[in-house]
């Protein structure tokens, strides 16, 4: 069981949360965007092996959204930060634990 540190409620089991996909994807202006760029915005994700910035929501608790850096190799949550904040520097944690 993965425990996630909700910025409001504290550590809670993963099953209380909803995953919200990759963070920091800015929506382009539809009228000024061609099909290729729009498809890129809709479907293409970075899918890294290592630290991934993603959105989570504490569905069964305070129902607030927040961002997290999670290592996709070790499943460690490296950092938790508020929506709208820039991605923090996660240097040194890139390699994961195993």
């Amino acid at each position, binding site marked *: 069981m993965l425990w996630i540190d909700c910025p409001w409620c504290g550590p809670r089991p993963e099953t209380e949360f909803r995953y919200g996909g990759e963070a920091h994807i800015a929506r382009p202006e539809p009228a000024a965007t061609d099909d290729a760029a729009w498809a890129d915005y809709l479907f293409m994700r970075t899918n890294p092996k290592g630290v991934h910035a993603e959105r989570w929501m504490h569905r069964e608790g*305070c129902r607030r959204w927040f961002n997290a850096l999670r290592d996709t190799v070790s499943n460690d949550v490296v950092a938790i930060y508020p929506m709208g904040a820039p991605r923090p520097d996660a240097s040194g944690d890139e390699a994961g634990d195993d």
Partner: protein
Amino acid sequence: MAEALAPRSPLAALADALAAVQAEGVTLAEQPARARLNLRLDPKDAEALTAAGAVLGGSLPRTPNTAATTVNGKTILWLGPDEWLVTGPAAEDAALEETLRGRLEGRHHALTDVSAMYATLALSGPRAREVLMKGCRLDLHPRAFAPGACVQTALARANVILHQAGDVPTYEITVRNSFAHYLGTWLLDAMAEYRPA
């Protein structure tokens, strides 16, 4: 012709089973209907917080996972950084909503009467913690969860507001109507092992 509908508890079908339950060291009972108001305020708006606190007779709890009892007999449960559940006697429901709405007039807020959305069960006794531990992943040990603690979490996969109201311990479990029968049945089953021989 319009017909007045009598309020009916979502646990009505379990009333006989709840009345007949016998267990050593733990009791389960439905709490009488109560007023419940969901209040959302900007926590940075000190004047709005003060105005709401003045109506309720105590300040809104700002610490996550806590509840506060006021001098006016209201219990205010923390639900989120800008969200609270105000509970009080059912008879005061309409008046409380009106007074709060009046005091918060012109301030950015949301006040919703959710009295009929939930049922509350009280689980009490020295073994109440053991019963809850069968379906709750949180640490309920007194060092982590004391009287006044209030969390929203999953109990037996149902979303509940779990409030420790007393140090017996007594837990008040507030659950949505549609899950009330299921959760009541689950709690009765979880208490079965403490039935006197």
